[in-house]
């Protein structure tokens, strides 16, 4: 078995009547010549690290090495938001928190990168707590997310230096949306639409880290990307479809990424990094 596109994943899932996560797990096991339970066990270790970071992010007093970030997640977690549903507010705080832990040299799981490490864990913890989903199923959903990430990496990119932030926070959001859709009983086709709908909203996002540090805007984008994931999962579960097929959306992301000037691909020479304040912070911090 083998896949390179979301369409192939959907077809395999349909034929075997299994969730996408199970297909991705089986193929990984085959490729690595390991038993599925060994591979699953490795993912359990990653999930444990994710949970620790999710917890630390909203309880510890976090401060980054540069002093640019820390504390927002804890603050937001403690408040009842005015516009967001309270549970969604907590999840957003957690996404911020994991990203703050990362900025403060804490332990995280790159997902798909260190800069975008808060999105998938926060989405899955939300599913576990709010939708009462058991750990076993959460682990399967992590494979669903990973399969989506693999396809994006094969056909576009998961690196801000190559494809802008759409490739990091955008792909993380697509991974989260697909996993949430599957966890909520959505079909494999709906998972595909959730991925497409997310990426459509994230398309074109540039990578412009202030002073070259993975803090501003990275941490905030973890929150924004999670919101996009929730939105896309809800839309897809309602039966709303992307008018552009998912693999074509991923192709568009590649094209947009290639068209981005170098100044907006992690070089810290454009966008927010090149604002007067961004430049001042760079001088101060480097």
């Amino acid at each position, binding site marked *: 078995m083998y896949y390179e596109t979301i369409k192939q994943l959907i077809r395999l899932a349909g034929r075997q009547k299994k969730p996408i996560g199970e297909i*991705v*797990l089986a193929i*990984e096991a085959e*490729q*690595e010549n390991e038993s599925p339970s060994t*591979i699953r066990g*490795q*993912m359990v*270790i*990653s999930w444990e*690290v994710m949970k620790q970071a999710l917890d630390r992010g909203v309880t510890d007093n976090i401060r*980054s*090495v*540069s002093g*640019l970030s820390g504390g927002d997640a804890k603050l937001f977690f403690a408040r009842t938001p005015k516009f967001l549903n309270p549970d969604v507010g907590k999840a957003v705080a957690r996404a911020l928190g994991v990203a703050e*832990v*990362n*900025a*403060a*040299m*804490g*332990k*995280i*799981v*790159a*997902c*798909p*990168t*260190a*800069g975008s*490490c808060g999105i*998938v864990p926060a989405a899955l913890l939300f599913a576990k707590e709010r939708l009462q989903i058991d750990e076993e199923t959460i682990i399967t959903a*992590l*494979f669903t*997310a*990973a*399969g989506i*990430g*693999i396809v994006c*990496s*094969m056909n576009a*990119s*998961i*690196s801000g*230096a*190559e494809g802008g932030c759409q490739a990091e926070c955008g792909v993380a959001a697509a*991974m989260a949306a697909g996993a949430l859709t599957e966890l909520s009983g959505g079909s494999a086709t709906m998972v595909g639409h959730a991925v497409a709908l997310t990426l459509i909203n994230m398309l074109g996002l540039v990578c412009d880290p202030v*002073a*070259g*540090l*993975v*803090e501003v805007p990275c941490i905030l984008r973890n929150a924004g990307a999670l919101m996009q994931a929730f939105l896309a999962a809800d839309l897809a579960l309602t039966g709303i479809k992307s008018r552009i097929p998912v693999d074509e959306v991923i192709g568009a992301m590649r094209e947009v990424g290639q068209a981005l000037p170098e100044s907006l691909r992690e070089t*810290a020479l454009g966008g927010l990094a090149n604002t007067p304040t961004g430049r001042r912070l760079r001088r101060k*911090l*480097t």
Partner: protein
Amino acid sequence: MGKADSVFEIIGPIMIGPSSSHTAAAVRIGQISLAILGEPVNEAIIQFHGSYALTGKGHGSDKAIVAGLLGFDAADERIKDSLAIAKQQNMKLDFQKVDLGDDYHPNTVRLLIAGVSGMHFEITAISVGGGNISIVEFNGLPIQLSGEYHTLITIHSDRPGIVAKATSIISQHKVNISTMNLSRQRRGGLAAMAIEMDQPLPPEAIKELEEKAQIVRIIPPIY
């Protein structure tokens, strides 16, 4: 950054933040340098070039390299305290920002390290993205290795037959070579050989090689 073909390249690595290219990769550069040195580090001059010089501090690249030199891995929570730990162990450290010129990758670091017995090396490494690295120079000689395989490095006098001898020893022990490269200062001068292998070399093979070369180092894969 290359295409991911494993689930754990997407969800992973488990690492200390904030940056896979500036923190996790820097730890690996330190780890490999320690393995090449083959003994505890007594003194290190760490030269940052390009983006490492610009953003290294905020990314904790200094702490990360020192953590690697102390033998910590990229998921070790002691990374952020590594400078203090190095101090306790009397490791002498000097950090410098340098400009190696445009020929060098924007994420380059050069290490001049000396061990407790006085053994010393110069190692130049780059971070190529996603936490992956490449060692590009060894004592001024260009080489190419990733640290992802079992690696053999030798420094030897450039004489005919040495390379053939080494590869035949390796194949006699049924070890598969994945990549190999050679370089030398000048004909007949000192030469370096770096071979990445799919399996570890047995101790007998290492012994045979030690009779042929001045320096032989075996480095296990560092993930």
